[in-house]
């Protein structure tokens, strides 16, 4: 909004701004593609571009070495690259949406209770059914995330103050607090759960196959479609409920769609990777700094930035403590937080 100068014709300026935003969007896509290529090549066994190409597209051969490369690319590198991109987009878009819907600049995707719901479900099924395979508890994690999101939204929409952004944020905290306590209680009384929980909590995009990635991508795609539908209304909602109502926005409906989108996005990403904190919050602010307050631009930027950051952090995590690996969720905080703090310090987020 601040880009419109009085002395110049508004249309010319907005055209320039739009061109700049389109160029920025294209640049982000290019960076993402480059990061994806690097992600395919880098790891415990470094591959040359030719080898990656072969692993992706060549027909099976009898050569032992090439078969091995093909195996690495197909079963390890491609899945984790795809998951990092998909989950990163989901968390970035989710972070931008939740800050918009709660009108709270410190709201994170975990706020709706989705992270704590997923953790609680994971710990519970491990303690009760003795499951140990991530493939088995993916669905429980998603179920827990979805139920927690629905409960938070339901509690916040009872009665007169229905859908009030402040109520939503506080209800989210209340439920998160409760679920986190229950999770701890179970984890402390069951060592197997505690052990699983600490790995799950770190947040990682590794070791998940396409059997998990496809359904997760489905949910995230649905969330993205809902997000797209709700963007124009979100712009108007940020002018205040009364203004939005006056301009013909169905407030209850657009809130419901928005919250459903956030639940789908954050819930699916959390189910597949574990809770990755801070990512959504961070990229939402950076995106707002780059694009201004228009959510039709802010949200795509946040999605691409989320994917880039998660992908880069996963790559860095593979390199820094070789031969071991650092979980992407840990790297996001260790790398992203200082960068974000520097931007904050330089006063980039004044009107966030």
């Amino acid at each position, binding site marked *: 909004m601040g880009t419109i100068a009085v002395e110049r014709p508004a249309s010319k300026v907005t055209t320039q701004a739009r061109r700049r935003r389109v160029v920025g969007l294209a640049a982000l896509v290019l960076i993402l593609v480059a990061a994806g290529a690097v992600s395919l090549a880098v790891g415990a066994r470094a591959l040359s571009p030719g080898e990656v190409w072969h692993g992706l597209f060549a027909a099976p051969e009898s050569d032992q070495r090439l078969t091995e490369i093909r195996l690495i690319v197909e079963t390890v590198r491609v899945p984790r690259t795809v998951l990092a991109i998909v989950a990163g987009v989901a968390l970035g878009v989710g972070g931008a949406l939740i800050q918009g819907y709660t009108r709270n600049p410190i709201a994170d995707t975990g706020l709706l209770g989705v992270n704590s719901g997923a953790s609680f479900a994971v710990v519970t099924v491990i303690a009760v059914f003795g499951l140990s395979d991530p493939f088995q508890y993916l669905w429980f994690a998603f179920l827990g995330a979805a139920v927690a999101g629905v409960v938070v939204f339901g509690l916040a929409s009872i009665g007169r103050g229905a859908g009030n952004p402040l109520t939503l944020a*506080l209800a989210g905290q209340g439920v998160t607090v409760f679920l986190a306590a229950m999770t701890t209680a179970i984890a402390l009384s069951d*060592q197997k759960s505690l052990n699983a929980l600490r790995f799950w909590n770190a947040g990682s995009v590794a070791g998940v196959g396409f059997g998990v990635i496809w359904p997760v991508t489905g949910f995230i795609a649905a969330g993205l479609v809902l997000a797209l539908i709700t963007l124009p209304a979100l712009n108007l909602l940020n002018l205040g409920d009364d203004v939005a109502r006056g301009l013909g926005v169905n407030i209850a409906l657009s809130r419901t769609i928005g919250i459903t989108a956030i639940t789908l996005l954050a819930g699916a990403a959390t189910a597949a990777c574990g809770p990755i904190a801070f990512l959504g919050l961070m990229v939402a602010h950076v995106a707002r700094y780059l694009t201004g307050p228009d959510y039709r631009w802010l949200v795509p930027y946040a999605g691409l930035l989320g994917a880039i950051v998660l992908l880069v952090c996963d790559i860095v995590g593979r390199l820094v403590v070789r031969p071991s690996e650092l979980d992407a969720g840990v*790297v996001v905080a260790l790398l992203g937080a200082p960068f974000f703090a520097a931007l904050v310090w330089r006063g980039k987020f004044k009107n966030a």
Partner: protein
Amino acid sequence: MNRTGVKPDVKPSVAPGVRLGRVSFVWRPWIVCVSLLLGAATFLVFCLSIGVGDFPIGLPQVIATIFGRGEQVDEFVIMDLRMPRALAGVVVGIGLGVSGALTQSIARNPLASPDVLGITNGASAVAVFLVTVSGGTAAAIVSSVGLSAAALMGGLGTGLLVYFLAWRRGIDGLRLILIGISVSAVMEALTTWLLVSADIRDVAQAQAWLVGSLDDRSWDEVQVAVWGTLVLLVVVAGAAFQFKPMHLGDDVAAGLGVRYSAVRAVLLLCAVLLAGVAVSAAGPVPFVALVAPQVAMRLARCPTPPMVASALVGALLLTGSDLVARTALPVGLPVGVVTAAIGGPFLVYLLVRANRR
């Protein structure tokens, strides 16, 4: 006021003021009532909590002993064995409640708590480092006092780091919180990393510390917390009179003669120190600082977190949770689990009730 500049003939309903020398405040009977009730409830739970144990003591005897007219056996059990723990509960609760009320007021954001400023995560990271890296035995040699002290250093160090990183020609609420979240995330990531790479036995010990507990407090440990909290509360009370107008915004506050930068710096430092002292005494008991001011606000029907009521809600929440943890629950669950299990739903209940009205 209308456009002609003629004042309307109706007097606005303003609460009556009270003036005692240089100190003046608005007389709001409802807040005083709520505070008195909370205080009474806290004292009751405090006494009940002292009475509960392997050697049960009735409520009248507990009260008599506290006021110095009890039997010798009771006096030994109560004053030497149970008082430190009960007192720790009250003091930590008060510290966290006030700390939360201050940070939420300064940031003008209900989600801002000392946890967000990195104090608890900083303390946790240091404590977990002590337990996991140097091994459980080494941490035992440093002894529980050493662990608390190290955690205190970690918490305060992180809090001050956040403050100085956020300082840029003054402190801005949002910048403080965003920097706080960043530093907090780094500390949490370090903790997670330590937990992932550690031996499972150390992890269990670290995890138990991470939840917060009031078990086995000695007078030595509690004394520091009690005196530290008292001194800080005096400072907060002194600055609080300057603080009220700041809810109207910096410009208005400056117009009313408040040196808001200085006041905010002092209060923020107090908030950090109060939370740090609380964490050193009981571990990072989560959520009390977040929930207590919000609950107090709604009970007292204030637009901003009230200091006294927040302190009392914090004390009641922690003392009550400790009582529940020791009596109602089968396994020895730490108090942090119970504060969250009670505080979270109660906050949600208040929200829902407020919306219904």
